[in-house]
């Protein structure tokens, strides 16, 4: 048949041709209030920030809300009303108490009402000591920091991070800490063959008392170098909601940075009813090195 050669040519050229293109979507978005507020019993001031959500990929800045009425309740009783400091910032000169339940309500004439609740966790009870390891290849004396968290009964979620001042510049965060313990959450652990334990945790280290409730969480932060400048390790006990917020923030960031698009999508956690943001609490114990 005359058209046979034509079909053979077509066959040869009939291969999978995947096409990739950038696309733009117009999402419908109704702005909603975004409240961020973390209670800390070590602080004499409670700070809240209030803003509006906006459609992604628009150039305008996030709009702050400065005319809302924000109330805080402690175990059902009015604890105080936040004062407006402008630019979406609100302050309340009160000290929250560990173990108590707090509820925050926001009333904006233009954008409606949002609210949330949280319980302030207990300050982590910790003990610690140092063990000298020896000199490394750079002739630096190294030591291990042995830390014990004496966990109390009930669900606790600890986050380990550092702060320090190096040559006058302040730095802080959860990165750079190497730790190998069975209660360390592996959600942000990635295998890195050059690291001491063959892996590292990205952005923060989370320690969970699941399976260790009421026990001592004993771990080592290895190979620290003595310094004359300020340096500290902090163990933060996060409330249930704040814990989820931190975790989903890190997961989202890891997804963004991943080479392959195979990770499950992440929704940033929020316990704000009818809105976005986080109302949580934490209590921090510090080891100044």
């Amino acid at each position, binding site marked *: 048949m005359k058209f046979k050669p034509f079909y053979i040519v077509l066959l040869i050229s009939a291969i999978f041709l995947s096409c990739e293109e950038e696309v733009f979507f117009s999402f419908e978005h109704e702005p909603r209030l975004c409240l961020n507020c973390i209670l800390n019993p070590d602080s004499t001031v409670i700070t809240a920030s209030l803003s509006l959500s906006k459609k992604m990929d628009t150039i305008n800045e996030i709009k702050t809300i400065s005319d809302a009425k924000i109330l805080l309740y402690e175990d059902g009783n009015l604890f105080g009303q936040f004062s407006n400091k402008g630019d979406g910032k609100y302050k309340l000169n009160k000290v929250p108490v560990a173990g108590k339940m707090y509820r925050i309500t926001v009333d904006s004439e233009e954008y409606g009402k949002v609210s949330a609740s949280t319980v302030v966790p207990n300050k982590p009870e910790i003990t610690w000591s140092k063990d000298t390891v020896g000199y490394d290849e750079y002739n630096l004396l190294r030591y291990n920091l042995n830390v014990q968290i004496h966990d109390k009964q009930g669900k606790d979620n600890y986050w380990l991070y550092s702060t320090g001042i190096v040559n006058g510049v302040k730095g802080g*965060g959860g990165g750079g800490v190497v730790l190998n313990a069975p209660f360390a959450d592996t959600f942000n652990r990635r295998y890195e063959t050059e690291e001491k334990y063959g892996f590292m945790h990205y952005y923060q280290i989370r320690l969970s008392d699941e399976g260790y409730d009421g026990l001592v969480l004993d771990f080592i932060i290895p190979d620290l170098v003595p310094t004359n400048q300020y340096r500290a390790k902090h163990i933060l006990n996060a409330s249930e909601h704040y814990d989820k917020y931190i975790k989903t923030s890190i997961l989202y960031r890891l997804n963004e940075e991943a080479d392959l698009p195979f990770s499950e*999508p992440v929704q940033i956690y929020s316990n704000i009813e009818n809105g976005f943001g986080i109302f949580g609490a934490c209590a921090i114990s510090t080891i100044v090195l």
Partner: protein
Amino acid sequence: MKRIIIFSFFIFPLWLSGQSKYTISGYITDAGSGERLAGATVYNKSTGKGTATNTYGFFSLTEKEGLCNLSFRFVGFREHTVNLELKNDTLVNISLQHGIEIDEIKISAQRQLRGNPELSVLNRQQVDMQMVESAPVILGERDILKTLQFMPGIKQGAENTAGYNVRGGSADQNLILLDGVPVYNVNHLMGFFSVFNTDAIKSAELIKGGIPARYGGRLSSVLDVTMKEGNMKESHGVFSISPVAGRITYESPIKTDTSAFIVSLRRTFFDLPMVAFQKLNGDNYNFGYYFYDLNAKANWKLNPGNRLYLSFYTGTDKLFHNTRESKTDKSSYNYNWGNFTTVLRWNKMFSPKLFSNLALYYSRFNHQQTGKAESEDTHTLFKTTTRLDDMSLKADFDYYIQPQYTLRFGTKVSHLTFNPNIIQLKSENSDVSFNEQNSSNARQAEIYMENAFSFGRLGLNIGSRVSGYFTGKKSYIHFQPRFAANLHVTPSFSVSTSYTQMAQNMHLLTNSSLGMPTDLWVASTDRIGPQLSSQVTLGIAYEPGQNFIFGVEGYYKKMNHVIRFDEGVAFLNPKESGWEENVLVGEGKAFGVEFLTEKQKGRLTGIFSYTLSRSDRKFDALNRGNWFPFKYDRRYDISVLAEYMLNKLYNKSRSISVGFTLQSGNNLSMPDTEIEGMLLPGTDFADHPIAWQNRRFTYSNPNNFKMPAFHHLDLGYNIIKKKTESKSITWSFSVYNVYNRMNPWYYYKKDGKVKQVSVFPLIPSVGFKYTF
């Protein structure tokens, strides 16, 4: 109350069997090949009673002593009539000749005699193999699963993939059987082709509502695929080739009218020219990809009451890359996945009324990645293995107590072994394994009883299945009632309803972004229990004459203990933690209405289907425990599959076929909202806080974004030239995606930009088949 019902089930058969009658029983076969015909009807014109053959071609009809004027019929075959004087139990084996029925006789009675008369036309769908052979398909590869996706309520996952979702369920909730053996992964090449070689397949039937008690283990549907048995009369074969693969099938009697075998092989040939070219070019590497399927079956008629079958299937996908820098310096990478199934079946006729099928089967799905590197000093190995083994023994009995009442009962015991994602790293200095704690064994035991009644215009199936699943630490026992009823209000108009409860003891963990062979089958454990569902349906059907079927059916389905990966989990990351820590357990619900129009005879045949549906999921740990749309929640689905016979002469026939699909898009989680963020602990102390922490990007609920509507039109043209009675040549030309619609296959975000990936443009193809 439960005890009274159970007691009645046991007493009722005894009461019915107390009457004195004789039984006509036997097998109905294809005269040309000796293949048994399932669903052939046996009708006694003298009494107006009848029955249909079971899956193995067996029938049993009990009648009073006297004259019987029996009619034996099956679609595509000439009617065969037998007159006999019934004085005792009689064995009648019938061979039907191919041909077209020339008269319509008691159409409604015939309709009510078909297999599973209690199920509506929308709950039970027989896959038309002729339609499979003529439907336009991508790259000329005929595919049962893709043809099924034109039916109402059955929706594809990603474009052109074999995986399908039924009535809001996920792909793992479909039980896919090949000769009664579960096949755990039906995907070649990421699901673009299924594992079923249509040259070796005799029939396929899908049930998605009112699932009878003899089936169990999955929530949403049962696809029962039966292989050809082998021609007992004479040798035949088929050779076919498409742009993707070549196929050869050969069947022959071992001993005429006593035993036969069939063997069928399909293999792609992408890799052959590539490897040859690389060798001729003197390259120090070779790489390629291929897949193959091998089906084989043999059967023996030991005597009129006993028959043995031995079936075997194996199929593999293989991606390979080998490099040889020198004699000692080489590396290789292999990525394989595939199935192996085998079953030994024994059909035994205990009596004219009692038929049994005993089967011993083994099914395995294996997926493996192996990376090796060798040099003079080093040998390293990286290997991941996922494997599921299923060894089962089952017994099924059909007891034809009365023409109006058939009792089916049976049992099955299984031993299952799960080895999901075991990782091994080996070098000269170390040999480490991960995830071995994920391995598990389980045992399963099931019994069922089905009472199938046919009271004139009313067909009823009342039964139950009890499954026991034992993990070692915990046992799960589930009682699953099943009910289906179909009432012919008039000979053409019927109303049907059904209620089913199903239990599924294993889960498929699949990344919500792509359908990959790395999807993991895992067992229910003491922490993660079996999935459960309940479904209710209500429908009507109108079947005027033999030509048209119109059906409408509504359904509501509730699912519990459905699982999915937790947020942020990537299955490609080797994890020390077990899979149970990385999944969430929740609920699902789905409801919808399905419309079907089917034309079965004439020059133009085909189906038109429309589905309007909704499917949601809920997980306590996601979306604050609120319901959100399921990924494959497609609000509407319109599908048309038709064939028009241009001409049909003895030695030549030509037809054109059309396939059209219009569906609302899948759902994805796409961040669409920007909000102010809180700095992570410690970063608020820093002089230079990290910029990204001041903002968060999120979405109001999972699967917030609906992909654009998916649609494409496919055309096919088929020419069949008959050389002799047994030899023919078929040319099939098809164009997939005629108007080149670049349907989005996947979206992802990179560097703040959203990218759309489309895979299937306009693709013409031609296929050739030679039957001898």
